[in-house]
């Protein structure tokens, strides 16, 4: 598909470095965990999880995201998508644990909404460095129970999402859905493996995307050659155990770099 023209109708400052952009166009068939390619014309096109049917939630990190942060309501970007495979859709009476770190909340917000709307029970562990960087606290609270963690103890438990997870009985959960920095996700995977629950866990991954439609191979992970853009970005924990996950990834020139 060619990029569709999406006009920004609302910008929400979630934290000092994270903003939500809502568009006049909705991707109505977007499933929780799917992503869009966001084209900042003349700069770059980058993947972003759909945090709403008509919105993305973005951390400013480099060229494209800085350009996006310069845009105002009324400006437009190009959107292609939704692409990739999202989270398993929750069903009524299922018990879902959501683990979100930092801007990893983006694909998990719609999952929480969808779980709550079908009558699944949702528990969220929401982590950030500090209280002012917690995103979607209210959204996750409205979907179910919430545990906050901050590295500096300014809100909730002092520590990491794994600090809370360590004391949890995860056998009660039908699925555990995770997104955040890779090291955080890797620590969650290792902990869930010890608890024997890694095959009920789904992780939303990040690799460098070029084509974003499963053709070029830029986003492939070792050792199975899984394409994060097409076979993922959401992958089951059992697929990640003996992979490069948590260890290395490939740069824009496909060189291996440490995570």
């Amino acid at each position, binding site marked *: 598909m060619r990029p569709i023209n999406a006009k920004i109708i609302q910008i929400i400052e979630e934290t000092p470095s994270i903003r939500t952009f809502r568009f006049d166009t909705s991707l109505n068939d977007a499933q929780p965990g799917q992503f869009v390619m966001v084209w900042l014309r003349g700069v770059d096109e980058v993947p972003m999880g759909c945090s709403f049917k008509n919105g993305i939630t973005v951390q400013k990190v480099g060229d494209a995201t800085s350009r996006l942060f310069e845009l105002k309501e009324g400006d437009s970007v*190009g959107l292609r998508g939704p692409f990739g495979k999202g989270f398993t859709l929750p069903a009524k009476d299922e018990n879902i644990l959501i683990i979100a770190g930092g801007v990893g909340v983006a694909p998990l917000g719609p999952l929480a909404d969808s779980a709550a709307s079908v009558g699944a029970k949702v528990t969220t562990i929401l982590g950030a460095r500090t209280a002012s960087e917690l995103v979607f606290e209210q959204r996750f609270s409205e979907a179910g129970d919430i545990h906050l963690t901050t590295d500096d103890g300014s809100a909730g438990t002092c520590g990491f999402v794994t600090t809370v997870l360590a004391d949890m009985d995860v056998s009660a959960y039908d699925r555990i859905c995770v997104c955040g920095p890779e090291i955080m996700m890797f620590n969650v995977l290792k902990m869930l493996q010890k608890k024997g629950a890694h095959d009920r866990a789904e992780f939303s991954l990040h690799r460098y995307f070029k084509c974003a439609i499963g053709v070029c191979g830029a986003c492939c992970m070792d050792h199975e050659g899984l394409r994060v853009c097409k076979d993922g970005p959401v992958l089951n924990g059992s697929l990640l155990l003996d992979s490069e996950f948590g260890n290395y990834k490939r740069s824009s*020139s496909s060189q291996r770099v440490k995570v």
Partner: protein
Amino acid sequence: MVKITGIEFRNPTILASGIMGTTGASLVRMANSGAGAVVTKSIGPEPKTGHPNPSMVKLDCGFLNAMGLPNPSYADFDNEIKIAKEGADVPVIASIFGGNAEEFVRVAEGLTEAKPDAFELNVSCPHAEGYGATIGTDSCMVEAITAAVCDAVDAPVWVKLTPNVTDIRSIGKAAENGGADAVVAINTLRGMAIDINSGYPILGNRFGGLSGPAVRPVAIKCVYDLYETLEIPVIGVGGVSSWEDAVEMIMAGASAVQIGSAVHEGIEVFGNIATGIEQFLQDNGYAGVEDITGLAHEVI
């Protein structure tokens, strides 16, 4: 079984360069999905990040791409070829590029230890400044580069041609004169798409190369012409997405076909096409692919 340039292939479908060929593991996955051979991403002398995105868009009629030859350089890639060779039970062909004969030779020699089954020289990428088609349209350079690589390596050398020339036969002839063991035709056709909401060209590089169904008739004609002109085998590539397309390409003169963009519809495409070709040969009483290679030339 097909034999081309001394290499045996379990079937005539080959993964095209630039598709799922960035890592050893993905090459193995493509082999496991049924490809008769796999060609790596084009590898050059230095690491390259490629063009900014968008680098590939699907249009109504095909795919437009301008990746910009992103690659980790031969120094980093020999390990991926080793992984592919260990894990895949099919031939692994190293696609290489450079700005001149000396660079091509440096890359080929740098990858020799990993023992690729053949080299494919990319003298045809339509959108990388100073590389690819800028040399692939110059028959003297094509001949010199082919000769230099053939001199430097023992493995068979295939040369991938650009259709963005007045007469592809003269470039094919240059490759043959340089000592190429086969030619591969065609690389993508120069193309462009513009976003009418803003006037911006969609690709980060502004223009790129077209592949997919739209280019198949162009590829068929190029393969047809090359088959007529050259002694060496022609490997057909361009818009093949079904066994019928593959058979058409073979009848035009291809000894095997490469498949690229069609991977978008599913990686099972290789197995499906190979089975379809096999069935077609059986149903029509042909002993093998050789029986129909260039058939279109004989019926005239």
